């Protein structure tokens, strides 16, 4: 054995003590974290827009208007919650608009055959999960980029929906099926409760379960996740399945609300959903999480859509507003990442050289 360095009996005895690996310290100063959080920026944006709206027209104060805004946002939010999870896991799902229509049509067809609402909803949702499974399998076993695969299934599913329906809507639907889409509890539509429950489930999945940590690891560094023993393929496939199921379920809910299923449901919805997730602070680079953001993003888009109409602004300009908000949100994500690493790199150096 080479001499020159005394053989320590234990590591502890040979090293300077380091009393301060606190388990409870927070990452960034709390105020700064809140200031940089995309949810706060979103809430402020919505608040400012609404305040401005209130000065212009009293319609902004109407409860019925707000019920409509939130109900519209609910559909986007249900899907955006799980789209966000796919993106956080390093993927992307462009097929949600088509799957939304497929879910609506399958469940409408089942309900129209006189099957119970439960079976109709389950059937539609399963169809979406099936499309998600196909997406996940192709992405993970053939290494084709998710953006291409899901663009392909978007076209494919849309085509199948039109083919099987002959382009015709399915109606009428039994009132037992439509019940959940058309009725209120304490003046608030069931749809909104359903969306809240689903967003909370997505939130818990991502923030509180071990699965959520694996998803974030998968999205941030797939190779490292694999080396650490996470079954990355199975995990990634499951995210597409959840997302497909969520999109189809939302479609079934839309069919229940309108009392009919139509093959042109969900046109362009995938872009709204992805925009909502990104506006909500989901980083397109994967890894960073936020489900409340995705829900707030959905709300912002819905507020803008209705608000611009109330303000008598040409509704064709609505997409311009969406576009600007989207780019601003992505810019905020960049700033946030840089800030996060800069602040803490300083603290890491301080801990190393006390």
């Amino acid at each position, binding site marked *: 054995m080479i001499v020159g360095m005394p053989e320590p009996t234990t590591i502890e005895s040979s*090293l300077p003590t380091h009393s301060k690996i606190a388990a409870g310290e*927070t990452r960034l100063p709390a105020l700064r974290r809140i200031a940089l959080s995309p949810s706060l920026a979103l809430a402020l944006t919505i608040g400012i827009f609404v305040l401005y709206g209130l000065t212009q027209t009293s319609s902004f104060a109407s409860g019925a208007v707000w019920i409509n805004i939130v109900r519209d946002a609910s559909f986007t939010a249900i899907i955006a919650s799980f789209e966000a999870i796919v993106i956080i896991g390093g993927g992307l799902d462009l097929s949600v608009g088509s799957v939304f229509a497929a879910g609506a049509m399958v469940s409408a067809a089942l309900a129209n055959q006189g099957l119970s609402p439960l079976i109709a909803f389950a059937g539609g949702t399963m169809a979406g999960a099936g499309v998600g499974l196909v997406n996940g399998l192709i992405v993970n076993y053939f290494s084709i980029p998710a953006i291409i695969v899901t663009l392909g299934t978007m076209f494919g599913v849309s085509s199948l929906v039109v083919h099987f329906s002959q382009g015709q809507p399915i109606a009428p639907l039994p009132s037992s099926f439509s019940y959940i889409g058309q009725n209120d509890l304490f003046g608030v539509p069931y749809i909104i409760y359903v969306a809240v429950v689903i967003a909370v489930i997505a939130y818990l999945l991502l923030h509180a379960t071990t699965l959520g940590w694996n998803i974030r690891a998968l999205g941030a560094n797939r190779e*490292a996740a694999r080396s650490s023993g996470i079954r990355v393929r199975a995990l990634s496939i499951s995210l597409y399945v959840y997302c497909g199921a969520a999109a189809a379920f939302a479609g079934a809910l839309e069919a229940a609300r309108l009392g009919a299923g139509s093959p042109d449901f969900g046109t362009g919805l995938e872009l709204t959903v992805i925009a909502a997730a990104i506006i909500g602070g989901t980083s397109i680079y994967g890894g960073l999480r936020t489900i409340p953001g995705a829900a707030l993003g959905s709300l912002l888009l819905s507020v803008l859509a209705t608000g611009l109409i109330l303000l008598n602004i040409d509704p064709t300009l609505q997409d311009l507003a969406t576009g600007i908000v989207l780019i601003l949100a992505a810019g905020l994500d960049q700033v946030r990442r840089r800030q996060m690493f800069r602040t803490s790199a300083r603290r890491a150096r301080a801990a190393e050289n006390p």
Partner: protein
Amino acid sequence: MLASSEIDIKVPSSLPPVLEVTNGWKSFGHVDALRDVSLSAYPGETLAILGDNGAGKSTLVKVLAGVHNLDAGELRINGRTVDRTSPLLARRQGISTVFQDLAVIETLDIAANMFLGQQIRRGWIFANRRRMFTEAAESLAALGVRVPSVRAQLGELSGGQRQGVAIARAVREDNPIVLMDEPTAALGVRETAHVGKIIRELKRRGKCVILVSHDLEFVFEFSDRLLVLRLGRVQGLRSTGSANQQEVVAMITGLAGDYEAKG
């Protein structure tokens, strides 16, 4: 057929080997990355694996870490033959690996990284963050790795701190074999010495440390035996105490060794 000269190599332990590769082969397309490689490693020793670029070190690491399976030959851990493997299985069977790229996630905090793929659960599916924070802090403290907080994101840390986290993760798994791939490549002098101390401590606890490194000085200071690979073959095996640095360099470059390449 190569015959490793066993003359000057004392087996460091009376215990049976904890890790054995017998006549291992691994090819990628037309390239034979490992050709008839055999090695044994024992509890309480540090076996260094040396070699130039393309010698087969990385492939051997990946085989041991469970990323690749051998095409032919046998891998035995604790006397049990391993047929098919994965990183997860390798870890369960007794090998903890500190990868060269560390296999850490920059956007997750230190505790999440330490428990990546093996989190502590609370109830059925929930992550027990509190216990992970506490245990991560304890593991790091025991190895003398200083970090601002176990809630700090890994992306914030210096190279030495990251290496410390990756090593602490492997040590915490308490497996009989710890495989370290280039653990000092990104480190300064002080951190390198620290890693050396950790290696000695692991040996003292009876672990088998496999140390893959370019750093001859480090290998000579902290290993017990060294195995030189060249062009996918075992070029030689020496006891570090009696080895001569010039000879080892000559083996790495192919100018000396037990195996003479033909053409």
